[in-house]
């Protein structure tokens, strides 16, 4: 009887361990809500950093960009799934430096100007999706995202991506 108990305990532990590993596998790679149709589970290859895209991307071209959500105290647009991203090469203040909002890049604002882009999630018709990007994509400030979409440039050098898929790097 004692032996049977031990077998049951071990079997339960193994099954629990297996189910945990399955769960982590399914969420690794995104770490976000998978329900959104705009979130992709595989990272697109050949993503371009924001700073480089601001130099080379042309208006109306499909682009894949990588960047970190931030650039101001409130990088998200309330009411629409849109936000600003900053080139990952631009450093941000650490929390240990006493900065309560490190995603505003207050210590490196001069570098942000040439390394920032706006991402707006669009539907099939090309219209911005209503809602909050944080809940729709499961992202937050300083999340690193890889976005795929169409670039829009203006003569002032501003870069906007009308994105239809977003990959969120795990643990960032």
């Amino acid at each position, binding site marked *: 009887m004692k032996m049977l108990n031990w077998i049951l305990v071990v079997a339960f532990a193994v099954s629990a361990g297996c189910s945990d590993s399955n769960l982590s596998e399914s969420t690794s790679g995104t770490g976000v809500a998978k329900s959104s149709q705009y979130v992709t589970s595989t990272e697109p290859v050949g993503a371009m950093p924001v700073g480089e895209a601001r130099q080379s991307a042309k208006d109306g071209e499909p682009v894949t960009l990588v960047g970190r959500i931030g650039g101001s105290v409130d990088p998200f*647009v309330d009411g*629409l799934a849109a936000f600003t991203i900053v080139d990952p090469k631009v450093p941000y203040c650490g929390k240990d430096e006493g900065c309560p909002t490190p995603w505003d890049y207050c210590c490196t604002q001069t570098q942000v100007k040439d390394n920032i882009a706006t991402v707006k999630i669009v539907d099939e018709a090309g219209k911005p999706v209503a809602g909050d990007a944080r809940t729709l994509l499961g992202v937050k400030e300083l999340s690193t995202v890889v976005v795929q979409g169409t670039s829009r440039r203006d003569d002032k050098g*501003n870069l906007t991506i009308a994105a239809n898929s977003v990959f969120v790097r795990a643990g960032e």
Partner: protein
Amino acid sequence: MLLPWEYGIRNLARRPVRTALTLGALATVVMLVFVVVGFIRGLEKSLEISGDPDVVLVYSVNSEANIESSSITSRTPGLLTASLDGTWLRFGVPHVSPELYLGTRVQTQSGDGGLGLIRGVTHTAPLVRRSVRLIEGHWPRDREVIVGRLAAAKLGADSSAMAIGQTIEFEGEIWTISGQFAAGGAAYESEIWCRLGDFQTATKRQDLSLVAMLLSPEALPAEVALFCKERIDLELHAVRETDYYATLQQHYRPVRILAWLVVVLVSGAGVFAGLNMMYGAVAGRIREIATLQAIGYRRRAILLSLIQEGVLLAAAASLLSGVIALTMFNGMAVRFTMGAFTLRIDSIAILVGCGVGLLLGVLGALPPAFKALRESVAISLKAV
């Protein structure tokens, strides 16, 4: 068996001086509560009604919610109108108001003056600021201003100094008052409005502080916010007007907390004043209370009668204070950093004021009554 209702009432009349003094003390405490709660309610209401949910304010991203320090280019209104479809358009006129907003020293003809809030506006301002009503005079012409109902209070000047035809001085220029406006208690009521071009000339500025846009019902404020995010070179920030004033509400939260603390402290002081008076009143009636016990009245009945006296006195004091507060303090202008607002003795203020008053009556009567009833009847009957 309870003591007759008239017994308590007659008791109050038996010692008119003591009763009048207690009534005066209680009324003063309740009045203080009315004034402080009226202050809080006035401040809250002023910020609450200042925003229009259909209006979006666009100002500099660097000004951090302080519109006075915002500076944006004068081409911004045109750019916004051309780039966004959501602006309310009527008879071909887009409801977009470019404004220059500044806090500066204003002096009246009589020499009074202080820090005034000046807003340089165009003819589109009343289309966007829908609560603003010109109640007297006419729209400003060259070197003329219209003043809000509370502008005089904001400057700490006499209202006659801000009458139509009077002149005021700011930014080194003399301006004639051409009209007076109201805005339903909103923050604009403490402002002075003049023509944008005149104000830009006087301040030697060509920029704007903000652009206020009235959106059509199907448009979203988020679309304006997205435009500002996309046009990073313009360094603009867009916020719904109601959200802007909600932020100010948060900013003034410590003031409101402090004011509620004052209400608690004043009420506490009132309880002690009431206790002091009631102790005096009961101490002189120990033999009377013992006699009532001797002829068969239970302690509970005597206690109820003493509470009845305290509550009657407190209720009278609350009514007296309420009448004075409603007739003399309600609507009184108060000068504040962000402008001016009026004291509001509304239902909440009356509820809190009268509630505190009645509480003073009960709490003030209880301890001395307990003390008097604790003594034995035999000893109390011999008390001097």
